[in-house]
């Protein structure tokens, strides 16, 4: 299917003429750059990409990608992308969405795409705020947060998007960070390679309305203590000196110091295909006592929707014969009048 040699694409091939119009310093720039670069390296023809979005700062993305694309309506990127993919399963279909677009108004489409395992790749820019509408609560904003729509502090408990996706049955869930372009790139590649629905949550800094939301995982001093970089089949180690790890105490996960009471053998080994582990990891978000996991949280192979669909069509054609206008009109009970 892929002939990497023959495609000589570079990042530039994915840049459009449109002036990029995010605020100076917005995390979206980094993600754009990562994606443009990674797309060029996948060995996929440029015309085979379709990038679909809803409405939001993040959702302006397709205008900056020189691929096929739709800047849709608020919350509906996923069903639009589903239609694109089903109509032409050969395409590599990407959804770019925000925390408001993707899981506030668009939450239903999100969970249904995950359960159906529709082969689209959903990249959610989570800045924990509504950017484009100038700073209201999003479903990932923390309790107590003061925003334009919560002048006395938010009273809405937030979602944990990864857990939500897992709860909906997502076969592939990952998390990355706007600033970490190498990691971001790797996640995009993994999603591209995964056959079926994929979900990547990207922590993204909104410099204007929620600046510093992810400071603890971007600041040099704290980031190692607050992030857990996952690797398949590797123990879950983190911390500046890699001296901490995740230990499963019965069924309760704890962050522990390695060396004192716990050895490296007590540390949980990550397994992308283990559904319990992924659920445990998903839960860490918003917990002050736990590091935030980055990387592939879950990756299991299950037959995707498009494959089911194409197989079924093929089977029926096999059985009933390819339909024609003639067979169509004359189907059912017919009789002649002479």
């Amino acid at each position, binding site marked *: 299917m892929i002939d990497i040699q023959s495609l000589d694409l570079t990042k530039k091939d994915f840049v459009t003429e449109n002036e990029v119009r995010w605020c100076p310093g917005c995390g979206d720039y980094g993600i754009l750059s990562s994606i443009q670069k990674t797309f060029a390296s996948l060995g996929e023809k440029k015309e085979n990409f379709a990038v679909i979005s809803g409405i939001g700062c993040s959702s302006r993305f397709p205008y900056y990608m*020189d691929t096929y694309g739709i800047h849709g309506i608020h919350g509906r990127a996923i069903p639009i992308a589903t239609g694109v993919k089903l109509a032409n399963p050969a395409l590599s279909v990407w959804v770019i969405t925000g925390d408001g677009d993707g899981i506030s108004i668009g939450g239903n489409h999100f969970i249904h795409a995950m359960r159906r395992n529709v082969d689209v790749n959903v990249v959610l820019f989570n800045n924990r705020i509504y950017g484009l509408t100038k700073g209201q609560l999003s479903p990932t904003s923390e309790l107590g947060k003061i925003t334009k729509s919560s002048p006395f502090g938010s009273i809405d408990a937030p979602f944990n998007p990864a857990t939500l996706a897992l709860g909906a049955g997502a076969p592939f869930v990952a998390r990355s960070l706007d600033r970490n372009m190498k990691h971001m790139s790797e996640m995009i590649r993994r999603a591209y390679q995964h056959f079926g629905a994929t979900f990547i949550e990207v922590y993204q800094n909104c410099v204007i309305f929620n600046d510093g939301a992810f400071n603890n995982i971007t600041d040099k001093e704290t980031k190692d203590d607050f992030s857990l970089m996952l690797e398949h089949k590797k123990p879950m180690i983190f911390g500046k000196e890699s001296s901490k790890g995740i230990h499963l105490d019965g069924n309760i996960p704890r962050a522990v110091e390695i060396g004192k009471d716990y050895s490296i053998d007590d540390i949980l080994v990550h397994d992308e295909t283990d559904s319990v582990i992924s659920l445990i990891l998903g839960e860490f978000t918003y917990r002050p006592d736990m590091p935030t996991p980055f990387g592939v949280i879950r990756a299991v192979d299950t037959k995707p929707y498009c494959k089911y669909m194409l197989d079924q069509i093929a089977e029926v054609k096999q059985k009933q014969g390819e339909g024609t206008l003639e067979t169509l009109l004359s189907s059912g009970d*017919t009789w002649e009048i002479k």
Partner: protein
Amino acid sequence: MDTTKQIRDMDDVVVRFAGDSGDGMQLIGDRFSSSSAHSGHDIATLPDYPSEIRAPAGTLAGVSAFQVNFSSRDIYTPGDAPDVLVAMNPAALKVHLNDLVRGGVIVANTAAFTGKNLKLAKYDSNPLEDGSLSGYHIYAVNMVEMVANATHNLNLKPKAIERCKNFFALGLLFWMYSHSKADTLKWLKKKFATKPELIEANIRAVNAGYNYGSTMRIFTTSYRVASAKLRQGKYRQVNGNLATVLGIVAAGLRMGREIFYGGYPITPASEIMHEFAAMKRYGVKMLQAEDEIAAVTAAIGASYAGNLACTATSGPGLALKSEALGLAIITELPMVVVDVQRGGPSTGLPTKPEQSDLNIAMYGRHGEAPMPVLCAFSPRDCFYAAYEASRIAVKYMTPVLLLTDGYLAQGAEPWRIPSEDELPEMDIEPVFGSEDFFPYARDEKTLARPWVSPGTPGKEHRIGGLEKEHIYGGVSHDPENHQFMTELRQNKVDGIALEIPPTEIFGDESDGLLILGWGGSYGAIREAVIRAREEGVKVSHVQVRYLDPLPPDLGDVLKRFNQVLIPETNMGQFRRVIQANYLMKPLGFNKVKGKPFRAEEIYEKIKEIAGEKS
């Protein structure tokens, strides 16, 4: 045996089969229609289900009915009032008696006229016996006993015998109307291929019914309806929903486009989804989406990716699709949106037809958001309307709204299957624009923009819901461009009017009364007008397929008549459209009872107006 009976010739007959939901009325209704159609009658049928899935047996709410009109002439509706009512239990009699023509025939299954059932049907005494039906011809038969006798050596359980009684009724009706049993006997053999005991039992029931008619003295007459002078050809029965699907799939095959259907179940449109789901051998891709918004937006995505996309729903679902239709309009993507209208507002009367979605179809989108609106006239016409909607959608690069209703959706008629070259041509020319590719370049005539699917090398482009720059398709906040594009979108839709054929007037070309209808009222109006004209009333009929844009000659046509009457099953939505367009005041004939017009009602109205005049 049959030789002894008196045979009377009739032009047309309306039979209504009514019984409990579990009595199999839809089945024998369908069999009776089929045998009528096969023997060359023109027919029209209409099922009438209870709104509950399975109401308790014997209750008024549980009655299920099926009406067949068969005729030696062209017919337009399933008939206003049955000539014959088959009542399998007291509740069925109670519910449907009012519709029966004065002096009509009642065939009743006395086995079900028990004390319990009479009570459930809220009868104080047995109507078959208390003289209250004296104005009718009553044929009361214990159908269960008859079947039991006919099958006594088959060792059937009482329940199984009971189940065959509908075929006894069918056999009796076959005899009464001189229909052939042959087809049905064949059908039974196929249907129950794996259950030979059922084949035998049901065949005996049919024969028992038939023989009962021919041997019993009570039936002094049987009737014969001559074959209709139908056009030669191959026929099949279609209801409106099936015809709609056939129209779209035919259009897709004709234009060489794969078909995508995005749907969500809703009465009375669900069957469209079922039919599409069954069309896998035509490569139809069908998504049962999580809701109507996902259904329509998936269709938009599929359209962008080059498929002929369709979504169908009823009122509440159309309301939900409203925002997304704006996106289809501004991105100028082809799509057919079918609205099978039902009684509103809100959940309203979900199983009843109404024509009250015209407003939302024409005006129910935010901003200036014009899209063509078409409607279908009859069950089989749904095929042509859907085919035409597809053609317009792709030719002009626009979503198209097609209005049908619950009455058309479920009503069935025989349809002469057109040959390929009888189908209208798909006169669609791909738009390329100038040398360079620009997504919002224009075809000069149609104002369509190019339809280029993802996967095409070198033509990568983005579209979306923000205002688009003319030709280039980029986002534009330029005031002049917005004015230009707003007008362009309007002009594109208005321009379709140039293709609309001259308005066909049935009756006189001018003067007198004109009945102006749209959609499913076609049959009732046409029948009424024919009847009134036969009596010398100066009345004509125009039925409008294109609601937006309207036919360019319509204003002139209307002004040629002394009076215009617009019958609608709503409060006058089309009348307001006519008023706004032509600054004239037609008469309204509005009914909002969850029922289609009967020809009789319109006929009476015509007479009333004609009477006032004279």
